[in-house]
């Protein structure tokens, strides 16, 4: 064996240390099994190259080793990943998925619900295509099982609320809570007057293309758009030009006040129809109303093709704020 100079063996020693660190990129099992042998081989090769004293050979070796390291770490990593999936015992696999499913069902039935805004009635605050998570706990109906242990609070004016549409409870609507039981509500020139006080609502949007007496000076008398429930409201709950919200009922209006079918048209929302409080937008996607109500093939293709361009990234994780309207002083 040719004797080697001290500086050379120093250099080889430091190369070996670097290589021993690089070995950590391999999966643990592979490293434990072969790491020591790989280091040995590496050192042997370094020694042989040092004997040839050819700097180009060293450089080639370094490049070759880097390529080898890059490709085999990926390869062994992938192999370890797949074998980990297969090796899991059948029982462990079933248990894990059962637990996951259990948590998923609990969370989705009790705590939150995914919801998409299909119409522009809350435009200005929420946009068509905003996919939201709705918190089902906060506004849980009084007396429900979780009410005592979960963070529950009463509904208040200005809350944004998700609820079952009274005319068709298969649909969920999101609107702002304007009237609680006992409130007297009317609209004057598009402005809400509640219990005699004019509200200043900074969150509303007025983009009327035309004046509409029914919409802006509510309640006058039923018109074509008024549903049966709306007519019932006109008949039984209007006292001297004001709607009086009955017990256990809510009066909801859209923020896009001139373009919203809300309690003015279909009446009150029963308290028990409240689904929850919109938490945040997890995905906002620019799509027409029809596509958001049902997943059609065209919508799937549209999302597949335009996911990155039509997603409104800036709305991701946006939290809609409940906001109390300011009440002007004095009776009007």
């Amino acid at each position, binding site marked *: 064996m040719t004797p080697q100079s001290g500086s050379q063996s120093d250099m080889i020693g430091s190369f070996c240390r670097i290589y021993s660190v690089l070995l950590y990129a391999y999966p643990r099992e592979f490293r434990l*099994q*072969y790491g020591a042998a*790989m280091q*040995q*081989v590496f050192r042997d090769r370094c020694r042989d190259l040092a004997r040839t004293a050819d700097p180009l050979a060293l450089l080639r070796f370094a490049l070759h*080793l880097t390529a080898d*390291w890059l*490709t085999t770490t990926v390869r*062994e990593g992938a192999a370890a990943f797949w074998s980990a999936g297969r090796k899991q015992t059948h029982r462990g696999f079933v248990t894990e998925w059962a637990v996951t499913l259990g948590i998923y069902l609990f969370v989705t039935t009790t705590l939150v619900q995914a919801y998409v805004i299909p119409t522009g009635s809350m435009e200005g605050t929420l946009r068509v295509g905003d996919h939201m998570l709705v918190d089902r706990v906060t506004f849980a109906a009084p007396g429900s099982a979780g009410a005592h242990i979960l963070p529950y609070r009463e509904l208040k004016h200005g809350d944004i609320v998700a609820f079952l549409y009274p005319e068709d409870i298969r649909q969920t609507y999101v609107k702002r809570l304007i009237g609680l039981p006992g409130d007297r509500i009317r609209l004057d020139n598009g402005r809400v007057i509640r219990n005699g006080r004019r509200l200043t609502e900074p969150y509303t949007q007025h983009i009327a293309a035309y004046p509409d007496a029914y919409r802006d000076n509510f309640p006058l008398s039923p018109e074509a758009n008024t549903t049966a429930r709306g007519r019932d409201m006109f008949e039984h709950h209007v006292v001297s030009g004001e709607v009086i919200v009955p017990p256990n009922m809510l009066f909801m209006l859209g923020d896009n006040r001139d373009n919203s079918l809300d309690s003015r048209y279909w009446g009150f929302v029963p308290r028990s129809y409240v689904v929850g409080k919109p938490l945040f937008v997890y995905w906002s996607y620019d799509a027409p109303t029809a596509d958001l109500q049902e997943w059609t093939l065209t919508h799937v293709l549209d999302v597949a093709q335009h996911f990155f361009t039509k997603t409104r990234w800036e709305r991701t994780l946006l939290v809609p704020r409940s906001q109390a309207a300011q009440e002007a002083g004095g009776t009007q």
Partner: protein
Amino acid sequence: MTKSQSAQELLPLTPPVFHILLALADEERHGYGIMQDVARQTDDALQLGPGTLYGCLKRMLAAGLVEESDERPDPTLDDERRRYYRMTTLGKRVVRAEAQRLTSAVMAARTKLAGGIS
């Protein structure tokens, strides 16, 4: 019959696997010994990196092409103990079958190219 079929199923071999088997054909060797022999076989054209070498050995062990021999020092290198590998009978069959396959391929190439080259 089933055994030769299983040998056929492993073909074609990747160049590193083929040359590792060839290196172990005459004697059992340790990792660096395999690496040196493969370089000799191929006139330095195929230099196995440590990752490629042991990744291949791992898969060849799993497939039953090679097996681990004992751990002992290499008298020509130093006194460190090294893990030696040797070829199994399946490995022998597979490397023969692969050599056969390559021979047929070379023959086919010769026949096709004979006219074009001359």
